[in-house]
């Protein structure tokens, strides 16, 4: 397909040429491409780069002219500008000559400066650069002039720092109250002593209670009876220690064993129960189960 189209174009082109010659400027433009297209597809490629080259050529030409302004004068300028404008146009109009303009000038080609003679513009530029005093900047002397870049970089750093700070704050919130390295000061020693005292009390109480029933097996009914008797004795001995009023209340409690809410009764019961939960505390609270057991005990009193 592609080949066919090429062929078709190839066929048409001669016609176009004719049309172009006969008709207006529009046709002319198309005709300009002619000589290259006639050479073939290969010729098309350099043609494509042309716009870039064109710019380059123009630039060089301008520079060349500006030099010449100082030297020669405006006359040359006209000449140069015309050559620059029609740099690409040369090929079409004067197909035979090509860049003949530049070659004919011979002395200085467009776009090429002869350094041997010395270039005033370069000299001036260098002088201006060298004269410039450069402040010590973060970005160095090369980009020293670019304030925008510096500002950008500083802003970036600031943002980074901010993000880091936020992360730190978050971590602080997470770790709030957490002491990763616990201290062992005098306070800790005091607490350990306190706890030790508590444990000693507990162990002593246990040994006191269990030594009393040593050699007795609570699973045997006979021993169980003995144990119960001893506990009862302990109970009453404890009662004897307390005030007379408490005793009186106790007897009342024994009679009305169903009454669950009877604080003095509970108090007394706690003494015999030897419930070590409260060994270091004031006795105050006993569950309902205990009261139930209490009533059983008081029942056994009668036996």
């Amino acid at each position, binding site marked *: 397909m592609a080949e066919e189209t090429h062929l078709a174009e190839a066929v048409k082109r001669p016609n176009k040429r004719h049309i172009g010659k006969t008709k207006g400027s529009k046709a002319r433009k198309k005709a300009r491409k002619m000589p290259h297209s006639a050479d073939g597809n290969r010729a098309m490629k350099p043609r494509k780069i042309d716009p870039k080259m064109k710019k380059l050529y123009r630039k060089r030409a301008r520079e060349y002219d500006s030099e010449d302004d100082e030297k020669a004068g405006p006359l040359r300028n006209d000449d140069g500008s015309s050559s620059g404008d029609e740099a690409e146009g040369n090929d079409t109009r004067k197909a035979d000559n090509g860049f003949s303009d530049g070659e004919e000038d011979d002395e200085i080609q467009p776009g090429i400066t002869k350094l041997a003679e010395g270039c005033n513009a370069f000299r001036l530029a260098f002088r201006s650069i060298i004269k410039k005093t450069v402040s010590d900047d973060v970005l160095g002397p090369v980009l020293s002039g670019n304030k925008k870049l510096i500002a950008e970089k500083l802003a970036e750093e600031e943002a980074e720092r901010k993000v880091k700070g936020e992360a730190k704050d978050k971590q602080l919130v997470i770790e709030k*109250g*957490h002491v990763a390295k616990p201290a062992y000061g005098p306070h800790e020693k005091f607490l350990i002593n306190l*706890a*030790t005292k508590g444990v000693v009390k507990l162990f002593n109480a246990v040994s006191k209670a269990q030594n009393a029933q040593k050699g007795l097996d609570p699973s045997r009914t006979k021993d169980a009876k003995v144990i119960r008797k001893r506990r009862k004795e302990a109970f009453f001995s404890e009662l004897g220690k307390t005030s007379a009023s408490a005793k009186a209340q106790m007897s009342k409690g024994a009679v009305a064993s169903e009454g669950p809410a009877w604080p003095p009764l509970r108090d007394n019961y706690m003494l015999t129960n030897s*419930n070590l*939960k409260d060994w270091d505390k004031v006795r105050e609270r006993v569950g309902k189960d205990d009261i139930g057991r209490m009533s059983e005990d008081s029942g056994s009193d009668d036996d």
Partner: protein
Amino acid sequence: MARFNNKRKPFVKPIAKKKLTTVDHVTGDKIPWSFVFSRGRLPGPLRQLKADLRKLLNPFTALNLKEKRRNTIRDFLNISGPMGVTHFLILSKTPTAPYLRVANTPQGSTLTFKIEEYSLAVDIKKSQKHPRCPKELFKNPPTIVLSGFVGEKHLTLASAMFRHIFPSIDANTVKLSSCQRILLLHYNKDTKLIDFRHYSIRLEPVGVSRRIRKFVQKHQVPDLRNLQDVSDFVTKAGYGSESEGDEEAETVTLASDLGRVNRASSKSAIKLQEIGPRMTLRLIKVEEGLCAGTVLFSEYDYGDGKKKDDNHEDAENEEDDGKDENEEEGSEDEEEGGEDMEED
């Protein structure tokens, strides 16, 4: 018709319900069970603290209690009835501080503690040269020692609450080998802080050199290279164990033999070693209901305690919805409120 009558219902084997030991075998006392869970999302260290607390409350707690974000307190409450759970320990967190709520179920009072400082069991372990953790340590409940909880009403309430979290000990029947851990709660009147410490109990025979004790404890052939005679092993004084003499108060006579070295006939010294977690708590609020109800006591004396309470609930509801941002906002609001109160 007869046929139909003959048709018997298939026998369905009743599903054996695993019976929870809600009652002590020996004493018949009711055993308190507890749940430790969190409200809202906890950061890493606090999650670890939760695990530590569960370990501390072993064995009468739900060690692997799974919770989801949409679980409300009501869910836990519903399950607590059939499971025989009597106490909730609820951890929560605001930007100001972490909080611990201890509540009695189903409708009991709630104590809110602000956790001023805490160290995890891991931190304690790291800080010790020879951390101690025998296998049997967490198989029995700890005993609790309360000190300084006298005077005001809310203190007695707090002490009662803590005491009832753990099963009671009956002196007549208790085995000494089951007393391995101790939880100390010490109320400091001046600072109004509660020190929460957890220790392991170790017993050592008094008047026995370290060498012999080790020899008895371990079944290892001792190193006799540097000794002239076998008798030296017994007579030669070892280096350590100088600290034994001074603490007469710390020695006990055991009711029964304990282990290989601690005999009932000889005296034993009590050595405590800390096992985490360690906390410093401040009691800031006492509520009548379960995380609700009238405020019986408040550390920060503000006028409308009820209002603040409602805010707290709102924040919680937001958390339940599972919206992260909302949750954070809510907690921030809460924090602001809290700080205001502190300033007051």
